[in-house]
């Protein structure tokens, strides 16, 4: 293990810490955060991260819109959120300071790069006075560090130009944080060696900068305390860090393998879904075919073509892309082909907030198509859950011959958590059978249990038949405009989706099985709701939490569970879309907790709503 001799310091063991690295979008804050995250994971901490970056690739340097941040909450206990407030803020310039300091805890550690606090930098950040001098930071433990100068000093013998040297200053900051939390650096050494294999001098430069940051903390007497965050007690097993997008990609590869059919992805690049395409395009040895289509519509319709041919077909997008796919999803419903559509939600409407999270596509997923066009809708609760949702959606699509929508969001997509790697035996079976028997073949005959029609793929002798978007005659699939046939087909398609409920497990509330208040959530609000539930129950509140992973059809017993509590609150990152569904379906007087800021809920926000609601009913 690479160690550096350290001066004796006071050591303090703490349960948990939150660090945020904030800088210009060119400062490498995402890499810095990821490195700290991976090291924390290797040390056995439970953790959650929240990368927060601008939509612009390089907004003007030093400006407020150009600030990129990465927050990590690591702990020796279970972690459910990236943390409400931060213990350590690293601010690489005045803009990063201005946009992030409000989240720093009183008395928190604030490390700033003073080299970037010149008049011109302050002006870019629209600061009227220098915050390092105007006493506005008096409530924090401020550590002004000459990060740029010290990094250049550390690298002076490598013969790099100033620009290349300055690119390493984020690793100086990383080294400081490693010192502060007594973390080994070898994991990052290894990563640097791999990343800069062909340019060893850059690996060396970053290592030197990191070591310099570490040594700086050691040598200066400013830092009096080092913290220890021991390993968490996670369920035994083999772990890795995983983001939601990565988990979806792996889940689909696993689903195709379990179904023993090829995986086809039609996709058009869109934030924050593109990483799924990037990742799946690497897995060709699994027979995965990725197709970067000319637009969102072609992404969906090419998937329909692939499903028609017998592949496990998926398409991945975000809200604006969903809007474009809707007509084609209607076609997939009419021709009853299995396709999984992933909507990685972001702030809207229109282009909205491409890199920020939101949950406002629920009603679009449920009802966004012309006519009566229901589909099963699933929602992943955590980054790791995205893996299981990919399998579940594929299983339902193939079993019922129906398009299925998975809702994820920007927070799940980019956020990471330790994920217990499942053994292959733990994966669900996904049996697939193409129709080959000619005897009695009808394109729209149905399985009595699932109402699925047969999957008769082109190339099968004797089963030549025609399908399309025009209304079908029941059983034969011939074009048919008769009034009663149409109503029958509308009802059949709806009944088929409703039949999926037989595969939806009953909900079992977390916390109290009945009581004063039930929190009902879906998607990425799982973390803050779970954290708030634990804290409030510890204070003796009688509350429960149901987190819906199946949003259509809803679990059979949900209506009964809702009635067991005096009050129902639905926290959502929208104006109350699940709330609307629950009120309509169950006639329950539920209330919403709504936040539409492109940011996940804080635990404290959910707790405040719990307290307020309980006060009202008392």
């Amino acid at each position: 293990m690479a160690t550096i001799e350290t001066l004796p310091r006071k050591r303090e063991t703490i349960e948990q810490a939150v660090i945020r690295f904030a800088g210009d979008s060119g400062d490498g804050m995402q890499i810095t955060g990821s490195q700290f995250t991976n090291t924390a994971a290797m040390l056995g901490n439970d953790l959650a991260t929240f990368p927060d970056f601008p939509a612009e690739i390089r907004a003007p340097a030093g400006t407020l819109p150009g600030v990129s941040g990465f927050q990590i909450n690591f702990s020796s206990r279970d972690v459910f959120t990236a943390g409400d407030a931060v213990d350590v803020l690293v601010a690489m310039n005045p803009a990063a300071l201005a946009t992030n300091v409000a989240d720093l805890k009183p008395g928190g550690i604030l490390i700033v790069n003073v080299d970037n606090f010149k008049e011109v930098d302050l002006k870019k950040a629209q600061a009227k006075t220098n915050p390092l001098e105007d006493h506005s930071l008096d409530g924090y433990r401020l550590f002004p560090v000459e990060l740029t100068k010290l990094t250049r000093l550390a690298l002076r013998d490598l013969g790099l130009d100033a620009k290349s040297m300055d690119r390493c200053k984020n690793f100086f900051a990383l080294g400081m944080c490693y010192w502060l939390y007594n973390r080994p650096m070898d994991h990052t050494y290894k990563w640097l060696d791999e990343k800069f294999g062909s340019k060893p001098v850059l690996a060396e430069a970053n290592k030197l900068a990191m070591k310099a940051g570490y040594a700086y903390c050691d040598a200066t007497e400013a830092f009096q305390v080092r913290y220890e965050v021991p390993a968490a007690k996670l369920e035994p097993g083999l772990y890795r860090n995983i983001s939601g997008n990565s988990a979806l990609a792996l889940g689909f590869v696993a689903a195709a393998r379990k179904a023993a059919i090829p995986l086809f992805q039609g996709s058009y690049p869109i934030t924050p879904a593109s990483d799924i395409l990037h990742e799946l395009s690497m897995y060709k040895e699994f027979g995965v075919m990725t197709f970067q289509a000319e637009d969102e519509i072609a992404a969906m319709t090419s998937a329909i073509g692939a499903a028609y041919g017998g592949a496990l077909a998926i398409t991945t997008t975000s809200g604006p892309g969903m809007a474009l796919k809707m007509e084609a999803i209607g076609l997939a419903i009419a021709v009853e082909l299995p396709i999984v559509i992933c909507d990685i939600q972001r702030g809207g409407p229109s282009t909205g907030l491409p890199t920020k999270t939101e949950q406002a596509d629920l009603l679009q997923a449920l009802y966004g198509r012309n006519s009566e066009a229901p589909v099963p809708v699933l929602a992943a609760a955590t980054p790791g859950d995205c893996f299981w949702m990919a399998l579940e959606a594929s299983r339902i699509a193939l079993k019922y011959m129906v398009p299925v929508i998975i809702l994820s969001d920007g927070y799940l997509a980019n956020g990471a958590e330790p994920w217990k790697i499942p053994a292959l035996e733990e994966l669900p079976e996904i049996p697939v059978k193409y129709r080959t028997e000619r005897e009695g073949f009808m394109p729209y005959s149905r399985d009595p249990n699932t109402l699925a029609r047969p999957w008769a793929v082109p190339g099968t002798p004797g089963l030549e038949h025609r399908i399309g978007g025009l209304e079908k005659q029941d059983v034969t699939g011939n074009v048919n405009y008769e009034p009663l046939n149409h109503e029958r087909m509308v009802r059949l398609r709806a009944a088929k989706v409703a039949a999926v409920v037989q595969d939806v497990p009953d909900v079992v509330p977390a916390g109290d099985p009945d009581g004063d208040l039930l929190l009902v959530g879906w998607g990425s609000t799982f973390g803050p709701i779970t954290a708030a539930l634990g804290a409030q129950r510890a204070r003796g509140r009688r509350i429960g939490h149901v987190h819906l992973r199946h949003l259509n059809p809803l679990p059979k017993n949900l209506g009964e569970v809702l009635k067991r509590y005096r009050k129902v609150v639905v926290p959502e990152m929208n104006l109350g879309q699940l709330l609307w569904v629950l009120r309509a379906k169950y006639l329950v007087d539920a209330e919403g907790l709504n936040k539409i800021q492109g940011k996940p809920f804080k635990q404290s926000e959910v707790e405040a709503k719990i307290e307020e609601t309980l006060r009202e009913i008392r």
Partner: protein
Amino acid sequence: MTTTLPVYTKKDFQTDQEVRWCPGCGDYAILSAVQSVFPELGIPKEKFVVVSGIGCSSRFPYYMNTYGFHTIHGRAPAVATGLKLTRPDLEVWVATGDGDALSIGGNHTIHMIRRNVGLKVLLFNNKIYGLTKGQYSPTSEMGKKAKSTPYGSVDRPFNPLSLALGAEATFVARSVDVFQSHLKATLKRAAAHQGTAFIEILQNCNIFNDGAWENLTERDVRDDNTIAIEHGQPLVFGKNKDKGIRMDGLDLEVVALGNGITEKDLIIHDERHLNPAYAFLLSRMDGTPGFPTPLGVLRAIDAPRYEAGMNEQVRLAIQKKGQGDLTKLLRAGDTWEVR
């Protein structure tokens, strides 16, 4: 292993569905030609798939006793692409129209052509919207008076062949609904082509745009107004085969044969010419006063096909890395054991 293919007849490719095109529609002739050609291609019937979009022409799959998919407006090329990429063993034909392929589906059309996906595309061009009952189309001539343009259209039309060639189509041909033997021969050429085979079929809509092509099809004028081009043959046309096309600087010129001008002075048609500019020049003769409209195969070259490249990448990856190991994939990257 020897497998004998059943001997097919035209009847094998007819369905029991009542054909719902208007009596007298040019689509009947196209359907008949395709049903005649398919049995002769030596391909098992179950391998044929006909994919269409929306419009009169897109009802085509219902009348073909093959696998068929009537999709949504403009999207047939994209559906067919997804099918062909995953199932390169299939023989996928796309039936589309001027509105379907060039208006609402224009984007998919050019990208299908650009990728050179192995699809055969039959573009029925009747220069009108039929199924929506008589609006002008992107191939309607400027000034077209139709339901939505009572004062005449004010936009310039697309020339489908020029558009396909602009996207560097590897096979571009044109035929006419009523020229049955020419149409069948052209379909056979398309069937043999690897890559996207794009055929514009001039088709008469006798209800909303009757006679749109009669200056090309009527017996007394057709030989003067069209030119049947053939690979390796000089560009000669006219009732008496007395006119030809030759180069004039960067343009084409119509000349009368005789008076010292012989076939040697004319362009010898080369469908394999690599530069699409040549075929593009031919396509621009349409509507140029004094010039004939070209029929036949303008261009037929070999080029990489998307589905071949994609499947080759998969094959090579498996060859190099072995069949993907799921356990290894899930455990890739940094892992740690919690005890």
